[in-house]
């Protein structure tokens, strides 16, 4: 499940533009989204706010797990989290949680996995942003052969998708 976060989050920068495009073209959709906005269940959050939730949640996982880990064992985590701030936080949290806990191994694994996923997402977002930057730069040239072509974007984005999928399945070799 977590591997899809990488694909989803890397498309986050396009959401606003795509949503504006769709709502401009589709009046019933716009009206429906406005209606949802005022629904009590949505708590005055627009559609875009919900679309960014997975990204926000993903960023919270490592923090949550790190804090939880800190509560479990001061000495074990000290090797991983060497920052003074974390050590101070650990000492504070140790008041409430014992050092021995059955969930420690699972939590450590969960933490390592989520950190890997977050790194993958960051890397993919960075690459997508780089392609977007290249497209922006290429639009400044008058030479048609230098300017971007649809095939170039398609190939660049396909490469990103394939790389992401390969990373998700544990392969690290570049295509």
């Amino acid at each position, binding site marked *: 499940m977590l591997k899809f976060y990488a694909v989803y989050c890397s498309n986050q920068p396009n959401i606003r533009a795509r949503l504006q495009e769709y709502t401009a073209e589709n009046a019933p959709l716009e009206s429906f989204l406005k209606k949802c906005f005022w629904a009590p269940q949505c708590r005055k959050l627009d559609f875009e706010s919900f679309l960014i939730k997975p990204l926000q949640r993903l960023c919270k996982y490592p923090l949550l797990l790190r804090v939880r880990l800190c509560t479990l064992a001061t000495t074990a985590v000290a090797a991983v989290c060497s920052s003074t701030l974390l050590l101070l936080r650990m000492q504070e949290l140790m008041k409430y949680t014992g050092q021995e806990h059955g969930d420690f191994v699972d939590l450590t694994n969960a933490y390592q996995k989520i950190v890997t996923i977050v790194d993958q997402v960051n890397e993919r977002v960075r690459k997508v942003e780089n392609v977007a930057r290249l497209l922006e730069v290429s639009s400044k040239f*008058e030479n048609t052969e230098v300017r971007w072509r649809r095939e170039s974007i398609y190939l660049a984005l396909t490469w990103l998708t394939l790389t992401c999928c390969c990373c998700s399945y544990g392969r690290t070799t570049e295509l």
Partner: protein
Amino acid sequence: MVVPQNFEIVDHTRQFILEGPLRVLGVARYGFLFNDCLLICKIPQKQGQLYATKQLLSLKEAFAVDEEPGT
């Protein structure tokens, strides 16, 4: 070297670094630096005009030479 016909900026391995004015053999030009090449362009005559590419310098083949001013 002259910009090849098949040169395309958009490439997943290429990264844009910076752009700015520069001088090539005393001529005012505008450069776009990427991680693998430097694209040298003619400065547009009017604001809003697009850049015409003049030369492409592959950084793999390039080397730097220190020269005393005026030599």
